[in-house]
């Protein structure tokens, strides 16, 4: 059951889970009725009962309500959630598999978002960690609603880490809040130093950028300092870690980052 919309809807992949997507939500937006006035408070000339309704509602208000619901559930559980965003193939699943092996006995779970296939969830489950695959079909991003349903299926343990691997796409996922504590953008060194400049929204929204596949840097002309300079140009506050999910270089720093963020959230809640 969906805690925000109460719709009982399910779009998770897997046997018996492939039914359609019918929206039947109820609104939470506030509107004020102003009869007979135009935009600037001018009387509407023709009296054919045209009226102006002020809405002032975010187009993504419904998504944000779902995200807020997710955030509340995570907070109550003392869980810490990261939303991993990147272009396709920059190494999100590889990084997660490696991360899971380094997290010791911290409880964790994974939500995998892809347009098609169960491949990434299968790769995660092979490590023994619980994973739910969400297939978005034509959708180019996960939304708060999908993640809420996936969370219901995961039975998160208190104090968990929740890793959400978004659909590989540097544009759309930036706009959709999932209820996560931090967006982490992954950029692999073969993608080109100018990617942060071409897709600034994603790197503006991220707290941390992982510069992945640094093991390949010597074989390409990748200029790691230029990557960092461009990341800081679009987001002066962004943190950056240089990592290779293949060799393990930089992975301890990433795991430390996760644990310290989780601890800070727990402290903030207690205080």
């Amino acid at each position, binding site marked *: 059951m969906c805690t925000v919309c109460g719709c009982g809807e399910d779009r998770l992949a897997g046997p018996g889970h492939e039914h359609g997507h019918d929206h039947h939500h109820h609104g939470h937006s506030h509107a004020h009725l102003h009869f007979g006035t135009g935009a600037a408070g001018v009387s509407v000339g023709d009296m054919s009962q045209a009226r*102006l*309704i002020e*809405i*002032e509602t975010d*187009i*993504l208000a419904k998504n944000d309500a779902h995200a807020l619901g997710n955030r509340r559930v995570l907070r109550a559980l003392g869980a810490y959630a990261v939303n991993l965003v990147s272009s396709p193939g920059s190494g999100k699943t590889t990084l997660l598999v490696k991360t899971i092996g380094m997290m010791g006995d911290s409880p964790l779970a994974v939500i995998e978002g892809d347009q098609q296939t169960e491949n990434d969830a299968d790769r995660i489950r092979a490590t023994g960690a619980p994973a739910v695959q969400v297939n978005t079909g034509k959708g*180019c991003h996960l939304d708060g609603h999908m993640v809420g349903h996936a969370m219901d299926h995961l039975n998160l343990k208190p104090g968990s880490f929740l890793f959400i691997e978004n659909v590989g796409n540097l544009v759309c996922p930036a706009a959709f809040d999932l209820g996560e504590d931090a967006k982490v953008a992954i950029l692999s060194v073969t993608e080109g130093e100018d990617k942060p400049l071409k897709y600034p929204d994603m790197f503006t929204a991220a707290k941390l950028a992982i510069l992945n596949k640094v093991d390949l840097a010597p074989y390409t002309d990748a200029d790691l300092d230029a990557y960092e300079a461009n990341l800081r140009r679009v987001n002066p506050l962004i943190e950056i870690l240089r990592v290779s999910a293949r060799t393990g270089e930089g992975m301890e720093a990433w795991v430390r980052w996760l644990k310290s963020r989780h601890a800070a959230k727990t402290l903030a809640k207690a205080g």
Partner: protein
Amino acid sequence: MHEMSLAEGIRQIVDDQAKAHGFSAVRVLRLEIGRFAGVEKEALAFCFDVVMRGGPAEGAILEMIDLPGRAMCCDCSTEVEIADRLDPCPLCGGGRLVPVAGDEMRVKDMEVV
């Protein structure tokens, strides 16, 4: 981009409002779109026409109002207006700016009958 999802969000707002206020048709629907919202306006207009079919806003005029982009300059600690996401600070020329406004995507109002 996700203009289709945006159009679906607008459709949901229209349907909710029609239920709440009992109007039958939307003549004009006005959006406020921030400069940095990354909205492809032509794509959104196209998706709007498709997604509004069969509902109260079918055939409605879609108006989009631009909202300026604003950023806080880390060098001179002033909030400034910038036209492009990567513009330098117009006051001090600094390049470290944190956007503070301009990512809005709102339904402002609707003219209904």
